[in-house]
């Protein structure tokens, strides 16, 4: 093979770039329609450009309430997921014990099974246990799949970390807590941050599990879904769609920046 590498045929380039355009087209549409002057129609081409709907949306009580709830749920679910996911990762990263395989499989279930199953089974369990649907039932539902995300991130990092670091720390007389604080935690820091951001974005955007566990509470995605059923406030919906996307996409880009290049953490070569 030549050192300058092979060149792609034109049709392959066309298909690949065409695919990228397809992937981004609806996202562009959402961004453009948020500035649409018209009140009730989706007609294209657009008639004019305005920032008015951002103002209108920022004064809507129902939108602000839904936004606040979504943020609170995402924070609670992320916190729960960080604690539980890290604990699980610490145990399952290296040790061999009976039932480890089963546990690993179990942690993959909420992602492998369709969300509707997680949603309805949680709902039926809450009903059986007489737990009233509330903020906490939403957060608990979200924590279940957020946990998996944190676990995956942290477990991958721990597996790449040389265990000799922990042994050295112990040999030098540090106890378990100290080793965790001074050796493990700094090594896991970016993985935790990335896992946390991912969990936050997932929870902020979640709709399928939420519709089952929410009761009368309305998160921002549920607010949007209700609007889609009976479209009355089209301009406000367009603005909310843009806001939801920015709040999920920006942290994800950050998380990607954080984990990029960490494949080469110390000792991974062995």
């Amino acid at each position, binding site marked *: *093979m030549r050192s300058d590498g*092979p060149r*792609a045929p034109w049709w*392959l380039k066309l*298909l*690949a770039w065409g*695919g*990228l355009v*397809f*992937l*981004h*087209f*609806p*996202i562009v*549409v*959402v961004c453009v*329609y948020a500035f649409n002057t018209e009140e009730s129609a*989706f*007609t294209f*081409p657009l008639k004019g450009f305005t920032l008015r709907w951002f103002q209108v949306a920022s004064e809507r009580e129902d939108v602000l309430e839904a936004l606040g709830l979504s943020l609170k749920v995402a924070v609670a679910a992320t916190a729960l997921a960080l*604690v539980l*996911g890290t*604990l*699980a990762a*610490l*145990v399952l990263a290296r040790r061999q*014990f009976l039932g480890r395989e089963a*546990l690993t499989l*179990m942690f993959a279930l*909420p992602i*492998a*099974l*369709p*969300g*509707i*199953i*997680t949603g*309805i*089974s*949680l*709902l*039926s*369990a809450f009903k059986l246990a007489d737990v009233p649907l509330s903020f906490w039932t939403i957060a608990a539902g979200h924590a*279940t799949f957020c*946990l998996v995300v944190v676990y995956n991130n942290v477990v991958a990092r721990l597996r790449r970390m040389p265990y000799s670091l922990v042994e050295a720390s112990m040999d030098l007389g540090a*106890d*378990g*807590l100290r080793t965790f604080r001074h050796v493990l935690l700094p090594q896991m820091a970016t993985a935790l941050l990335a896992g946390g951001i991912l969990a936050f*974005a997932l929870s902020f*955007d979640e*709709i*399928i599990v939420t519709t089952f566990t929410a009761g009368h509470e309305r998160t921002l995605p549920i607010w*949007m*879904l209700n609007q*889609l059923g009976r479209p009355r406030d089209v301009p406000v*919906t367009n603005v909310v*769609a843009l806001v*939801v996307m920015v709040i999920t*996409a920006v942290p*994800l880009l950050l998380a990607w920046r954080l984990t990029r290049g960490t494949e080469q953490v110390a000792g991974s070569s062995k």
Partner: protein
Amino acid sequence: MISNLLYRRSTLRLLLLLTPPLLWFGVVYLGSLLALLAQSFYTFDDFTMEVTPELTWINYTALLDDANADIVLRTVGMAAAVTVASAVVAFPIAYYVARYTEGLRKGLFYVAIMLPMWASYIVKAYAWTVILTKGGILYWFIGKLGLTGALEWVLELPYVGGTSLSTSNIGRFLVFTYVWLPFMILPIQASIERVPPQLLQASADLGARPAQTFRTVILPLSFPGVVAGSIFTFSLTLGDYIIPQLVGPPGLFIGTMVYTQQGSIGNLPMAAAFTVVPILIVGAYLAIARRLGAFDAL
């Protein structure tokens, strides 16, 4: 120090660490899954609308009724179509990124595929309702290309057509393919990147033309990636109930059926029996995928 004691008694430490996540998953998640399964055998009284814990097979036999079997077939058919289409659209993108991009351009493609994948699901679904609606962007664009006649002809076809793009199976199929496409691209890309370059050199040295190398070396070796991607596209379509509500003809999907049964009718046993269908299908699918080596490609 207590932590030293814990380090020495490593089993104790293990148990202590594992208890909170295990309680959460074992009790809250698995517990509720099993509770749901149990309820699929409960009796629902059509007349009083009440659920009683009398065990019965009736919910499962009802799954075989024509109307219910229709729902299952409709959903599985759509999931299969979406999976095939995603693979066809994803492969060239994945192949190009894996074999012909490096450095900055590779990073650009990676982000450009990741971003729509993680972008809000409900917003993407919403964007498509805007795009597909009559008088919307796609109608305008097709009109500009002078293809309105062709579109009308397609919409009159049985099964795929409908009164407009946003109420047809084509529309629903398009939205499903769009939202799950990145889940197909990434595993295929990963599996193509894992094909050792020496194999390609060997193939060329032995006189194979590029198309032959592609067919006999790259395609078989990247197939596990396609299967891995198909797990996502298939299982996600099977369980989805938002997109079938928003786009496409009125017929129910497994997801919408589960939602209506438990929500508006209160027939949790029937809803539970319906959820067992995707669990079984996904389970069987995973078992086959495992044999095809798809798990190594994840």
